[in-house]
Protein backbone atom coordinates (compact mmCIF):
# COMPACT_ATOMS: atom_id res chain seq x y z
CA UNK A 1 0.00 0.00 0.00
CA UNK A 2 2.98 2.29 -0.12
CA UNK A 3 3.97 4.11 -3.25
CA UNK A 4 4.92 1.51 -5.76
CA UNK A 5 7.09 3.67 -7.94
CA UNK A 6 10.30 2.97 -6.03
CA UNK A 7 11.00 -0.50 -7.26
CA UNK A 8 9.59 -2.66 -9.97
CA UNK A 9 10.51 -6.01 -8.45
CA UNK A 10 7.91 -7.68 -6.26
CA UNK A 11 10.18 -8.81 -3.47
CA UNK A 12 11.10 -6.21 -0.87
CA UNK A 13 14.77 -6.96 -1.48
CA UNK A 14 17.02 -6.05 1.43
CA UNK A 15 19.99 -3.87 0.47
CA UNK A 16 22.55 -6.56 1.13
CA UNK A 17 21.38 -9.69 -0.58
CA UNK A 18 21.93 -12.88 1.41
CA UNK A 19 24.27 -15.31 -0.30
CA UNK A 20 22.21 -18.06 -1.95
CA UNK A 21 19.33 -18.57 0.37
CA UNK A 22 17.67 -21.53 -1.30
CA UNK A 23 14.30 -22.76 0.00
CA UNK A 24 14.33 -26.42 1.08
CA UNK A 25 11.76 -27.45 -1.55
CA UNK A 26 14.07 -26.11 -4.24
CA UNK A 27 16.97 -28.11 -2.81
CA UNK A 28 14.81 -31.24 -2.94
CA UNK A 29 13.83 -30.38 -6.51
CA UNK A 30 17.46 -30.05 -7.54
CA UNK A 31 18.21 -33.43 -5.92
CA UNK A 32 15.30 -35.05 -7.79
CA UNK A 33 16.36 -33.58 -11.14
CA UNK A 34 19.99 -34.56 -10.54
CA UNK A 35 18.93 -38.11 -9.69
CA UNK A 36 16.76 -38.37 -12.78
CA UNK A 37 19.55 -37.04 -14.98
CA UNK A 38 21.88 -39.60 -13.40
CA UNK A 39 19.35 -42.34 -14.21
CA UNK A 40 19.36 -41.27 -17.82
CA UNK A 41 23.17 -41.15 -18.05
CA UNK A 42 24.00 -44.37 -16.21
CA UNK A 43 20.89 -46.50 -15.71
CA UNK A 44 22.98 -49.60 -14.98
CA UNK A 45 24.36 -48.05 -11.79
CA UNK A 46 20.92 -47.63 -10.27
CA UNK A 47 19.26 -50.81 -11.38
CA UNK A 48 21.01 -54.14 -11.80
CA UNK A 49 18.03 -55.99 -13.21
CA UNK A 50 17.36 -56.54 -16.86
CA UNK A 51 14.75 -54.13 -18.26
CA UNK A 52 14.08 -56.16 -21.41
CA UNK A 53 14.15 -59.87 -20.48
CA UNK A 54 11.82 -60.90 -17.70
CA UNK A 55 11.81 -63.81 -15.30
CA UNK A 56 8.77 -65.98 -16.24
CA UNK A 57 8.29 -67.22 -12.68
CA UNK A 58 7.89 -63.70 -11.33
CA UNK A 59 4.92 -62.21 -13.14
CA UNK A 60 2.93 -59.34 -11.63
CA UNK A 61 4.77 -59.23 -8.31
CA UNK A 62 3.59 -56.24 -6.28
CA UNK A 63 6.24 -53.74 -5.13
CA UNK A 64 8.64 -55.27 -2.61
CA UNK A 65 12.24 -55.05 -1.43
CA UNK A 66 13.44 -57.11 -4.37
CA UNK A 67 11.30 -55.26 -6.93
CA UNK A 68 10.75 -51.69 -5.76
CA UNK A 69 8.11 -50.98 -8.39
CA UNK A 70 6.93 -54.62 -8.75
CA UNK A 71 7.14 -56.63 -11.95
CA UNK A 72 5.12 -56.59 -15.17
CA UNK A 73 3.36 -59.17 -17.34
CA UNK A 74 6.68 -60.63 -18.52
CA UNK A 75 8.25 -60.69 -15.08
CA UNK A 76 10.41 -57.67 -15.82
CA UNK A 77 11.43 -55.42 -12.96
CA UNK A 78 9.37 -52.24 -13.32
CA UNK A 79 11.96 -50.11 -11.53
CA UNK A 80 14.60 -51.21 -14.02
CA UNK A 81 12.23 -50.35 -16.85
CA UNK A 82 11.52 -46.90 -15.45
CA UNK A 83 15.22 -46.20 -14.90
CA UNK A 84 16.21 -47.42 -18.34
CA UNK A 85 13.34 -45.47 -19.92
CA UNK A 86 14.60 -42.25 -18.36
CA UNK A 87 17.19 -41.69 -21.05
CA UNK A 88 14.65 -41.37 -23.81
CA UNK A 89 12.00 -39.68 -21.65
CA UNK A 90 14.21 -37.00 -20.14
CA UNK A 91 17.14 -36.58 -22.51
CA UNK A 92 14.76 -36.23 -25.41
CA UNK A 93 13.08 -33.43 -23.48
CA UNK A 94 16.50 -31.78 -23.29
CA UNK A 95 16.85 -32.16 -27.06
CA UNK A 96 13.44 -30.57 -27.49
CA UNK A 97 14.35 -27.61 -25.30
CA UNK A 98 17.63 -27.19 -27.15
CA UNK A 99 15.86 -27.07 -30.51
CA UNK A 100 13.32 -24.57 -29.24
CA UNK A 101 16.02 -22.51 -27.58
CA UNK A 102 18.40 -22.36 -30.53
CA UNK A 103 15.87 -21.88 -33.34
CA UNK A 104 13.38 -19.80 -31.38
CA UNK A 105 16.16 -17.86 -29.72
CA UNK A 106 17.71 -17.00 -33.05
CA UNK A 107 14.34 -15.84 -34.39
CA UNK A 108 13.71 -13.70 -31.36
CA UNK A 109 17.19 -12.26 -31.38
CA UNK A 110 17.14 -11.29 -35.04
CA UNK A 111 13.59 -10.05 -34.79
CA UNK A 112 14.20 -7.87 -31.76
CA UNK A 113 17.61 -6.61 -32.77
CA UNK A 114 17.06 -5.69 -36.38
CA UNK A 115 13.40 -4.73 -36.23
CA UNK A 116 11.76 -3.46 -39.40
CA UNK A 117 11.10 -5.92 -42.18
CA UNK A 118 13.00 -8.76 -40.48
CA UNK A 119 10.86 -8.32 -37.40
CA UNK A 120 7.60 -8.20 -39.33
CA UNK A 121 8.42 -11.28 -41.38
CA UNK A 122 9.55 -13.32 -38.39
CA UNK A 123 6.59 -12.10 -36.34
CA UNK A 124 4.17 -13.49 -38.93
CA UNK A 125 6.08 -16.75 -38.95
CA UNK A 126 5.85 -16.98 -35.18
CA UNK A 127 2.13 -16.13 -35.37
CA UNK A 128 1.67 -19.08 -37.69
CA UNK A 129 3.56 -21.40 -35.35
CA UNK A 130 1.42 -20.18 -32.47
CA UNK A 131 -1.79 -20.59 -34.44
CA UNK A 132 -1.36 -24.33 -34.90
CA UNK A 133 -2.10 -25.93 -31.52
CA UNK A 134 1.29 -27.10 -30.29
CA UNK A 135 0.29 -30.66 -29.50
CA UNK A 136 -1.38 -31.13 -32.90
CA UNK A 137 1.72 -29.67 -34.49
CA UNK A 138 3.87 -32.16 -32.60
CA UNK A 139 1.59 -35.01 -33.71
CA UNK A 140 1.78 -33.94 -37.35
CA UNK A 141 5.55 -33.57 -37.28
CA UNK A 142 6.14 -36.88 -35.54
CA UNK A 143 3.85 -38.66 -37.97
CA UNK A 144 5.73 -37.05 -40.85
CA UNK A 145 9.14 -38.00 -39.48
CA UNK A 146 8.20 -41.45 -38.21
CA UNK A 147 7.30 -42.90 -34.83
CA UNK A 148 10.51 -42.63 -32.85
CA UNK A 149 11.29 -40.96 -29.59
CA UNK A 150 13.94 -38.74 -31.16
CA UNK A 151 11.38 -37.54 -33.71
CA UNK A 152 8.93 -36.89 -30.90
CA UNK A 153 11.65 -34.75 -29.33
CA UNK A 154 12.19 -32.83 -32.57
CA UNK A 155 8.44 -32.33 -32.91
CA UNK A 156 8.17 -31.09 -29.34
CA UNK A 157 11.09 -28.75 -29.91
CA UNK A 158 9.61 -27.26 -33.07
CA UNK A 159 6.31 -26.67 -31.31
CA UNK A 160 8.19 -24.70 -28.63
CA UNK A 161 10.03 -22.46 -31.10
CA UNK A 162 7.35 -19.78 -31.06
CA UNK A 163 7.42 -19.34 -27.28
CA UNK A 164 11.18 -18.91 -27.17
CA UNK A 165 11.11 -16.51 -30.11
CA UNK A 166 8.51 -14.34 -28.41
CA UNK A 167 10.24 -14.16 -25.06
CA UNK A 168 13.67 -13.52 -26.50
CA UNK A 169 12.32 -10.83 -28.79
CA UNK A 170 10.77 -8.92 -25.93
CA UNK A 171 13.90 -9.33 -23.82
CA UNK A 172 16.07 -8.02 -26.64
CA UNK A 173 13.75 -5.07 -27.15
CA UNK A 174 13.97 -4.33 -23.44
CA UNK A 175 17.75 -4.55 -23.43
CA UNK A 176 18.07 -2.56 -26.63
CA UNK A 177 16.32 0.43 -25.19
CA UNK A 178 18.70 0.42 -22.21
CA UNK A 179 21.07 3.36 -21.96
CA UNK A 180 24.21 1.26 -21.81
CA UNK A 181 23.37 -0.39 -25.12
CA UNK A 182 22.81 2.98 -26.71
CA UNK A 183 26.08 4.15 -25.21
CA UNK A 184 28.07 1.23 -26.51
CA UNK A 185 26.58 1.70 -30.00
CA UNK A 186 27.53 5.38 -29.83
CA UNK A 187 31.02 4.44 -28.76
CA UNK A 188 31.33 2.63 -32.02
CA UNK A 189 30.55 -0.91 -30.93
CA UNK A 190 29.54 -3.08 -33.85
CA UNK A 191 26.04 -4.48 -33.88
CA UNK A 192 27.28 -8.02 -33.43
CA UNK A 193 29.49 -7.21 -30.48
CA UNK A 194 26.72 -5.25 -28.77
CA UNK A 195 24.37 -8.14 -29.40
CA UNK A 196 26.64 -10.73 -27.84
CA UNK A 197 28.33 -8.65 -25.16
CA UNK A 198 25.33 -6.76 -23.82
CA UNK A 199 21.97 -7.79 -25.17
CA UNK A 200 22.31 -11.55 -24.94
CA UNK A 201 23.65 -11.76 -21.37
CA UNK A 202 20.87 -9.47 -20.20
CA UNK A 203 18.22 -11.61 -21.84
CA UNK A 204 19.69 -14.88 -20.62
CA UNK A 205 18.10 -14.91 -17.17
CA UNK A 206 14.49 -15.00 -18.30
CA UNK A 207 15.41 -17.32 -21.13
CA UNK A 208 16.96 -19.74 -18.63
CA UNK A 209 13.80 -19.70 -16.58
CA UNK A 210 11.72 -20.30 -19.71
CA UNK A 211 14.02 -23.12 -20.80
CA UNK A 212 13.59 -24.88 -17.46
CA UNK A 213 9.82 -24.44 -17.67
CA UNK A 214 9.81 -25.80 -21.23
CA UNK A 215 11.92 -28.73 -20.06
CA UNK A 216 9.08 -29.77 -17.75
CA UNK A 217 6.49 -29.19 -20.46
CA UNK A 218 8.54 -31.18 -22.96
CA UNK A 219 8.72 -34.16 -20.59
CA UNK A 220 4.91 -34.05 -20.47
CA UNK A 221 4.52 -33.66 -24.24
CA UNK A 222 6.94 -36.47 -25.00
CA UNK A 223 5.22 -38.68 -22.42
CA UNK A 224 1.89 -37.89 -24.10
CA UNK A 225 3.27 -38.72 -27.53
CA UNK A 226 4.72 -41.97 -26.15
CA UNK A 227 1.38 -42.68 -24.49
CA UNK A 228 -0.30 -42.48 -27.90
CA UNK A 229 2.36 -44.83 -29.26
CA UNK A 230 4.27 -42.21 -31.27
CA UNK A 231 7.60 -42.90 -29.58
CA UNK A 232 9.93 -45.88 -29.73
CA UNK A 233 7.93 -49.14 -29.73
CA UNK A 234 8.30 -51.70 -26.89
CA UNK A 235 10.58 -53.07 -25.47
CA UNK A 236 11.59 -49.42 -25.11
CA UNK A 237 10.28 -48.14 -21.83
CA UNK A 238 9.52 -44.43 -22.13
CA UNK A 239 7.51 -43.34 -19.14
CA UNK A 240 4.45 -42.51 -21.22
CA UNK A 241 4.64 -45.89 -22.94
CA UNK A 242 4.98 -47.67 -19.58
CA UNK A 243 1.86 -45.91 -18.30
CA UNK A 244 0.01 -46.70 -21.51
CA UNK A 245 0.89 -50.40 -21.47
CA UNK A 246 0.34 -50.64 -17.71
CA UNK A 247 -3.28 -49.68 -18.32
CA UNK A 248 -3.97 -53.14 -19.73
CA UNK A 249 -3.44 -54.78 -16.35
CA UNK A 250 -5.88 -53.21 -13.91
CA UNK A 251 -5.01 -55.86 -11.31
CA UNK A 252 -1.42 -54.62 -11.27
CA UNK A 253 -2.01 -50.91 -10.66
CA UNK A 254 1.64 -50.32 -9.74
CA UNK A 255 2.48 -50.67 -13.43
CA UNK A 256 0.65 -47.39 -14.00
CA UNK A 257 1.37 -45.59 -10.76
CA UNK A 258 5.11 -46.17 -10.51
CA UNK A 259 6.00 -44.47 -13.81
CA UNK A 260 3.21 -41.95 -13.24
CA UNK A 261 4.56 -40.85 -9.87
CA UNK A 262 8.09 -40.66 -11.26
CA UNK A 263 6.85 -38.45 -14.11
CA UNK A 264 4.84 -36.17 -11.84
CA UNK A 265 7.62 -35.79 -9.25
CA UNK A 266 10.15 -35.01 -11.98
CA UNK A 267 7.99 -32.39 -13.65
CA UNK A 268 6.96 -30.88 -10.30
CA UNK A 269 10.63 -30.51 -9.39
CA UNK A 270 11.50 -28.93 -12.71
CA UNK A 271 8.58 -26.51 -12.39
CA UNK A 272 9.59 -25.65 -8.83
CA UNK A 273 13.09 -24.77 -10.01
CA UNK A 274 11.69 -22.66 -12.83
CA UNK A 275 9.42 -20.82 -10.41
CA UNK A 276 12.32 -20.20 -8.06
CA UNK A 277 14.43 -18.84 -10.90
CA UNK A 278 11.64 -16.46 -11.81
CA UNK A 279 11.27 -15.25 -8.25
CA UNK A 280 14.97 -14.66 -7.67
CA UNK A 281 15.24 -12.82 -10.95
Amino acid sequence: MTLTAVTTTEAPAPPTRPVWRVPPTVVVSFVVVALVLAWSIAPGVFSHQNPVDGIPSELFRPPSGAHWFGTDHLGRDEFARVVHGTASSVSSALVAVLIGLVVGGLFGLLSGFFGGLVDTTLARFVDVLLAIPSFLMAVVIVSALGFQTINAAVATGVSAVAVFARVLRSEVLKARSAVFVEASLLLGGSRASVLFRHVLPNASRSVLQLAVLQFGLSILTIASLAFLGYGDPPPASDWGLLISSGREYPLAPWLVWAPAVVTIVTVLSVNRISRWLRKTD
Partner: protein
Amino acid sequence: MSRGYLPFALRRAGQAVLVILLAYVATFVVISVLPGDPVTATLRNPQNGFTEEQIARIVSYYGLDRPVLVQLWEALSRFVTGDLGVSLRSNRPVADMIGEVVPSTLVLAGASLGLALLLAFGIAFGVRYLPRPFGPALRSVPSLFLSVPGFLVGLLLIQIFSFGLGLFRAIDADSPWATFFAALTLGVWVSAQVAEVLIANLDREAEQDYAGVARARGLGQARLLLRHLLKPSALPVVTVLAVMIGEVLGGAVITEAVFGRTGLGSLVESSVASQDLPVLQAVVSLAAVVFVLVNLLADLVYPLLDPRVTVVRPEARVAVA
Protein backbone atom coordinates in the same frame (compact mmCIF):
# COMPACT_ATOMS: atom_id res chain seq x y z
CA MET B 1 -14.84 2.81 -28.41
CA SER B 2 -12.08 5.02 -29.54
CA ARG B 3 -11.35 6.64 -32.84
CA GLY B 4 -8.65 4.22 -33.84
CA TYR B 5 -10.82 1.16 -33.34
CA LEU B 6 -11.94 0.53 -36.92
CA PRO B 7 -8.48 0.69 -38.50
CA PHE B 8 -7.21 -1.50 -35.65
CA ALA B 9 -9.98 -4.05 -36.24
CA LEU B 10 -9.39 -4.11 -39.98
CA ARG B 11 -5.64 -4.50 -39.61
CA ARG B 12 -6.10 -7.24 -37.04
CA ALA B 13 -8.62 -9.10 -39.25
CA GLY B 14 -6.30 -8.87 -42.24
CA GLN B 15 -3.51 -10.29 -40.15
CA ALA B 16 -5.75 -13.16 -39.07
CA VAL B 17 -6.59 -14.08 -42.66
CA LEU B 18 -2.92 -14.03 -43.58
CA VAL B 19 -2.00 -16.23 -40.62
CA ILE B 20 -4.72 -18.75 -41.47
CA LEU B 21 -3.47 -19.07 -45.03
CA LEU B 22 0.13 -19.37 -43.90
CA ALA B 23 -0.84 -21.96 -41.29
CA TYR B 24 -2.37 -24.05 -44.05
CA VAL B 25 0.81 -23.69 -46.08
CA ALA B 26 2.88 -24.66 -43.03
CA THR B 27 0.95 -27.89 -42.42
CA PHE B 28 1.08 -28.63 -46.12
CA VAL B 29 4.84 -28.23 -46.13
CA VAL B 30 5.34 -30.40 -43.05
CA ILE B 31 3.11 -33.11 -44.42
CA SER B 32 4.49 -33.08 -47.96
CA VAL B 33 8.16 -33.15 -46.96
CA LEU B 34 7.38 -36.63 -45.66
CA PRO B 35 10.19 -38.98 -46.53
CA GLY B 36 8.85 -41.66 -48.82
CA ASP B 37 5.49 -41.58 -50.53
CA PRO B 38 2.86 -42.82 -48.10
CA VAL B 39 0.08 -41.51 -50.31
CA THR B 40 0.61 -43.90 -53.15
CA ALA B 41 1.81 -46.55 -50.72
CA THR B 42 -1.53 -46.27 -48.96
CA LEU B 43 -3.43 -46.30 -52.21
CA ARG B 44 -1.64 -49.38 -53.49
CA ASN B 45 -2.26 -51.26 -50.27
CA PRO B 46 -4.31 -54.26 -51.50
CA GLN B 47 -6.59 -53.94 -48.49
CA ASN B 48 -8.00 -50.71 -49.90
CA GLY B 49 -9.00 -52.42 -53.11
CA PHE B 50 -8.43 -49.45 -55.39
CA THR B 51 -8.05 -50.29 -59.05
CA GLU B 52 -5.19 -48.73 -61.02
CA GLU B 53 -7.68 -46.37 -62.68
CA GLN B 54 -9.02 -45.18 -59.34
CA ILE B 55 -5.49 -44.65 -58.10
CA ALA B 56 -4.67 -42.63 -61.19
CA ARG B 57 -7.82 -40.57 -60.68
CA ILE B 58 -7.06 -39.89 -57.02
CA VAL B 59 -3.43 -39.09 -57.78
CA SER B 60 -4.48 -36.62 -60.45
CA TYR B 61 -7.24 -35.23 -58.22
CA TYR B 62 -4.58 -34.38 -55.66
CA GLY B 63 -2.24 -33.36 -58.44
CA LEU B 64 0.46 -35.58 -57.00
CA ASP B 65 1.95 -35.92 -60.46
CA ARG B 66 2.58 -32.17 -60.60
CA PRO B 67 5.26 -29.96 -58.97
CA VAL B 68 4.87 -29.31 -55.25
CA LEU B 69 4.27 -25.59 -55.71
CA VAL B 70 1.40 -26.23 -58.10
CA GLN B 71 0.00 -28.79 -55.67
CA LEU B 72 0.22 -26.25 -52.87
CA TRP B 73 -1.55 -23.60 -54.91
CA GLU B 74 -4.36 -25.97 -55.86
CA ALA B 75 -4.75 -27.27 -52.31
CA LEU B 76 -4.81 -23.73 -51.00
CA SER B 77 -7.44 -22.60 -53.48
CA ARG B 78 -9.57 -25.62 -52.59
CA PHE B 79 -9.12 -24.85 -48.88
CA VAL B 80 -10.23 -21.25 -49.38
CA THR B 81 -13.46 -22.40 -51.02
CA GLY B 82 -14.08 -24.84 -48.19
CA ASP B 83 -13.20 -28.01 -50.09
CA LEU B 84 -11.13 -30.09 -47.72
CA GLY B 85 -10.48 -32.96 -50.10
CA VAL B 86 -11.25 -36.65 -49.90
CA SER B 87 -10.06 -39.19 -47.37
CA LEU B 88 -7.50 -41.65 -48.64
CA ARG B 89 -8.96 -44.34 -46.40
CA SER B 90 -12.70 -44.15 -46.72
CA ASN B 91 -12.83 -42.18 -49.97
CA ARG B 92 -15.35 -39.84 -48.36
CA PRO B 93 -15.22 -36.03 -48.34
CA VAL B 94 -13.11 -34.94 -45.38
CA ALA B 95 -15.58 -32.17 -44.61
CA ASP B 96 -18.29 -34.78 -43.98
CA MET B 97 -16.04 -36.79 -41.70
CA ILE B 98 -15.16 -33.70 -39.70
CA GLY B 99 -18.77 -32.57 -39.59
CA GLU B 100 -19.77 -35.85 -37.97
CA VAL B 101 -17.34 -35.59 -35.08
CA VAL B 102 -17.30 -31.85 -34.47
CA PRO B 103 -20.39 -31.71 -32.19
CA SER B 104 -18.86 -34.20 -29.76
CA THR B 105 -15.61 -32.25 -29.52
CA LEU B 106 -17.50 -28.96 -29.21
CA VAL B 107 -19.40 -30.32 -26.22
CA LEU B 108 -16.16 -31.56 -24.70
CA ALA B 109 -14.31 -28.29 -25.31
CA GLY B 110 -17.17 -26.10 -24.09
CA ALA B 111 -17.68 -28.14 -20.94
CA SER B 112 -13.97 -28.20 -20.21
CA LEU B 113 -13.63 -24.43 -20.58
CA GLY B 114 -16.61 -23.93 -18.27
CA LEU B 115 -15.22 -26.33 -15.68
CA ALA B 116 -11.80 -24.72 -16.00
CA LEU B 117 -13.23 -21.29 -15.26
CA LEU B 118 -15.12 -22.59 -12.23
CA LEU B 119 -12.01 -24.33 -10.92
CA ALA B 120 -9.75 -21.37 -11.59
CA PHE B 121 -12.00 -18.84 -9.88
CA GLY B 122 -12.48 -21.25 -6.98
CA ILE B 123 -8.74 -21.63 -6.56
CA ALA B 124 -7.99 -17.92 -6.91
CA PHE B 125 -10.68 -16.87 -4.42
CA GLY B 126 -9.61 -19.64 -2.07
CA VAL B 127 -6.04 -18.38 -2.15
CA ARG B 128 -7.15 -14.92 -1.06
CA TYR B 129 -9.94 -15.66 1.36
CA LEU B 130 -9.49 -19.06 2.97
CA PRO B 131 -7.94 -18.99 6.44
CA ARG B 132 -4.25 -19.43 6.85
CA PRO B 133 -3.10 -22.98 6.26
CA PHE B 134 -5.59 -23.59 3.44
CA GLY B 135 -5.41 -20.40 1.43
CA PRO B 136 -1.65 -20.25 0.95
CA ALA B 137 -1.57 -24.01 0.38
CA LEU B 138 -3.93 -23.54 -2.57
CA ARG B 139 -1.27 -21.40 -4.23
CA SER B 140 0.69 -24.50 -5.18
CA VAL B 141 -2.34 -26.20 -6.75
CA PRO B 142 -1.89 -24.65 -10.22
CA SER B 143 1.71 -25.79 -10.45
CA LEU B 144 0.67 -29.27 -9.29
CA PHE B 145 -1.99 -29.33 -12.02
CA LEU B 146 0.62 -28.24 -14.56
CA SER B 147 2.91 -31.12 -13.58
CA VAL B 148 0.48 -33.94 -14.22
CA PRO B 149 0.19 -35.27 -17.78
CA GLY B 150 -3.36 -34.96 -19.07
CA PHE B 151 -3.74 -38.66 -19.74
CA LEU B 152 -2.94 -39.42 -16.09
CA VAL B 153 -5.69 -37.13 -14.86
CA GLY B 154 -8.06 -39.05 -17.12
CA LEU B 155 -6.79 -42.45 -15.96
CA LEU B 156 -7.09 -41.37 -12.33
CA LEU B 157 -10.65 -40.11 -12.78
CA ILE B 158 -11.67 -43.30 -14.58
CA GLN B 159 -10.01 -45.40 -11.90
CA ILE B 160 -11.77 -43.62 -9.04
CA PHE B 161 -15.18 -42.75 -10.43
CA SER B 162 -15.76 -45.54 -12.92
CA PHE B 163 -13.99 -48.62 -11.58
CA GLY B 164 -14.05 -47.52 -7.94
CA LEU B 165 -17.36 -45.77 -7.35
CA GLY B 166 -19.19 -47.11 -10.38
CA LEU B 167 -20.49 -43.64 -11.21
CA PHE B 168 -20.28 -44.25 -14.94
CA ARG B 169 -19.33 -47.02 -17.29
CA ALA B 170 -16.03 -46.28 -18.95
CA ILE B 171 -17.24 -48.05 -22.09
CA ASP B 172 -20.21 -45.75 -22.53
CA ALA B 173 -18.17 -42.72 -23.57
CA ASP B 174 -21.08 -40.40 -24.35
CA SER B 175 -22.96 -40.69 -21.07
CA PRO B 176 -23.22 -37.40 -19.17
CA TRP B 177 -20.85 -38.48 -16.39
CA ALA B 178 -18.24 -39.77 -18.81
CA THR B 179 -18.44 -36.48 -20.70
CA PHE B 180 -18.17 -34.58 -17.42
CA PHE B 181 -14.99 -36.39 -16.39
CA ALA B 182 -13.48 -36.11 -19.86
CA ALA B 183 -14.14 -32.38 -19.74
CA LEU B 184 -12.64 -32.23 -16.26
CA THR B 185 -9.51 -33.97 -17.54
CA LEU B 186 -9.07 -31.28 -20.16
CA GLY B 187 -10.20 -28.52 -17.83
CA VAL B 188 -7.67 -29.21 -15.08
CA TRP B 189 -4.80 -28.12 -17.29
CA VAL B 190 -6.60 -25.01 -18.53
CA SER B 191 -7.74 -24.08 -15.06
CA ALA B 192 -4.17 -24.08 -13.78
CA GLN B 193 -3.10 -21.52 -16.36
CA VAL B 194 -6.16 -19.34 -15.78
CA ALA B 195 -5.77 -19.60 -12.01
CA GLU B 196 -2.13 -18.49 -12.19
CA VAL B 197 -3.08 -15.36 -14.08
CA LEU B 198 -6.03 -14.66 -11.78
CA ILE B 199 -3.99 -15.09 -8.60
CA ALA B 200 -1.23 -12.83 -9.89
CA ASN B 201 -3.73 -10.19 -11.00
CA LEU B 202 -5.66 -10.26 -7.73
CA ASP B 203 -2.41 -9.91 -5.81
CA ARG B 204 -1.41 -6.95 -7.92
CA GLU B 205 -4.77 -5.21 -7.81
CA ALA B 206 -5.03 -5.63 -4.04
CA GLU B 207 -1.81 -3.63 -3.73
CA GLN B 208 -3.10 -0.73 -5.82
CA ASP B 209 -3.87 2.59 -4.21
CA TYR B 210 -7.56 2.43 -5.10
CA ALA B 211 -7.90 -0.82 -3.18
CA GLY B 212 -6.24 0.79 -0.17
CA VAL B 213 -8.62 3.72 -0.37
CA ALA B 214 -11.57 1.36 -0.53
CA ARG B 215 -10.27 -0.53 2.49
CA ALA B 216 -9.75 2.70 4.37
CA ARG B 217 -13.35 3.60 3.64
CA GLY B 218 -14.24 0.48 5.58
CA LEU B 219 -15.11 -1.88 2.75
CA GLY B 220 -15.11 -5.56 3.75
CA GLN B 221 -12.96 -8.07 1.90
CA ALA B 222 -15.89 -9.60 0.02
CA ARG B 223 -17.23 -6.24 -1.11
CA LEU B 224 -13.77 -5.10 -2.07
CA LEU B 225 -13.31 -8.19 -4.20
CA LEU B 226 -16.66 -8.06 -5.94
CA ARG B 227 -16.89 -4.30 -6.43
CA HIS B 228 -13.30 -3.43 -7.21
CA LEU B 229 -10.80 -6.22 -7.67
CA LEU B 230 -12.77 -8.72 -9.69
CA LYS B 231 -13.22 -6.84 -12.93
CA PRO B 232 -9.66 -5.68 -13.58
CA SER B 233 -8.33 -9.08 -12.50
CA ALA B 234 -10.72 -11.18 -14.50
CA LEU B 235 -10.61 -9.30 -17.82
CA PRO B 236 -7.20 -10.59 -18.90
CA VAL B 237 -8.64 -14.08 -18.50
CA VAL B 238 -10.46 -13.47 -21.79
CA THR B 239 -7.10 -13.39 -23.57
CA VAL B 240 -5.76 -16.39 -21.67
CA LEU B 241 -8.87 -18.44 -22.48
CA ALA B 242 -8.56 -17.57 -26.15
CA VAL B 243 -4.99 -18.82 -26.18
CA MET B 244 -6.09 -21.93 -24.27
CA ILE B 245 -8.36 -22.93 -27.16
CA GLY B 246 -5.27 -24.34 -28.82
CA GLU B 247 -4.41 -26.40 -25.74
CA VAL B 248 -7.97 -27.72 -25.59
CA LEU B 249 -7.94 -28.78 -29.24
CA GLY B 250 -4.54 -30.45 -28.82
CA GLY B 251 -5.50 -32.02 -25.50
CA ALA B 252 -8.63 -33.46 -27.10
CA VAL B 253 -6.42 -35.99 -28.88
CA ILE B 254 -5.25 -37.38 -25.53
CA THR B 255 -8.54 -37.04 -23.69
CA GLU B 256 -10.58 -38.68 -26.41
CA ALA B 257 -8.06 -41.51 -26.57
CA VAL B 258 -8.24 -42.09 -22.82
CA PHE B 259 -12.02 -41.92 -22.60
CA GLY B 260 -12.65 -43.67 -25.91
CA ARG B 261 -14.71 -40.78 -27.26
CA THR B 262 -15.08 -40.07 -30.93
CA GLY B 263 -14.25 -36.53 -31.94
CA LEU B 264 -11.72 -34.39 -33.72
CA GLY B 265 -8.97 -35.77 -31.49
CA SER B 266 -9.76 -39.39 -32.24
CA LEU B 267 -10.01 -38.46 -35.93
CA VAL B 268 -6.47 -37.10 -35.71
CA GLU B 269 -5.30 -40.25 -33.98
CA SER B 270 -6.88 -42.59 -36.52
CA SER B 271 -5.69 -40.55 -39.49
CA VAL B 272 -2.15 -40.60 -38.10
CA ALA B 273 -2.38 -44.35 -37.64
CA SER B 274 -3.59 -44.90 -41.19
CA GLN B 275 -1.47 -42.10 -42.72
CA ASP B 276 -4.64 -40.49 -44.02
CA LEU B 277 -2.91 -37.23 -44.83
CA PRO B 278 -5.79 -35.19 -46.27
CA VAL B 279 -7.78 -35.78 -43.08
CA LEU B 280 -4.82 -34.92 -40.87
CA GLN B 281 -4.09 -31.78 -42.84
CA ALA B 282 -7.72 -30.68 -42.75
CA VAL B 283 -8.18 -31.19 -39.02
CA VAL B 284 -4.95 -29.44 -38.11
CA SER B 285 -5.58 -26.47 -40.36
CA LEU B 286 -9.14 -26.22 -39.09
CA ALA B 287 -7.78 -26.15 -35.56
CA ALA B 288 -5.55 -23.27 -36.63
CA VAL B 289 -8.56 -21.50 -38.15
CA VAL B 290 -10.50 -21.90 -34.91
CA PHE B 291 -7.54 -20.68 -32.87
CA VAL B 292 -6.98 -17.63 -35.04
CA LEU B 293 -10.68 -16.69 -35.18
CA VAL B 294 -11.17 -17.07 -31.43
CA ASN B 295 -8.10 -14.98 -30.73
CA LEU B 296 -9.20 -12.41 -33.28
CA LEU B 297 -12.55 -12.19 -31.52
CA ALA B 298 -10.86 -11.86 -28.13
CA ASP B 299 -8.59 -9.13 -29.43
CA LEU B 300 -11.46 -7.25 -31.01
CA VAL B 301 -13.73 -7.51 -27.97
CA TYR B 302 -11.07 -6.76 -25.39
CA PRO B 303 -10.67 -3.01 -25.99
CA LEU B 304 -14.44 -2.70 -25.70
CA LEU B 305 -14.48 -4.52 -22.36
CA ASP B 306 -11.47 -2.89 -20.78
CA PRO B 307 -11.42 0.91 -20.97
CA ARG B 308 -7.78 0.94 -19.84
CA VAL B 309 -6.74 -0.61 -23.11
CA THR B 310 -6.20 1.68 -26.03
CA VAL B 311 -5.86 0.30 -29.50
CA VAL B 312 -3.03 2.58 -30.49
CA ARG B 313 -0.40 0.01 -29.65
CA PRO B 314 -2.01 -3.43 -29.79
CA GLU B 315 1.30 -5.11 -28.93
CA ALA B 316 1.32 -3.64 -25.44
CA ARG B 317 -1.56 -5.82 -24.32
CA VAL B 318 -0.23 -9.10 -25.64
CA ALA B 319 2.24 -9.16 -22.78
CA VAL B 320 -0.64 -9.95 -20.41
CA ALA B 321 -0.88 -13.48 -21.73
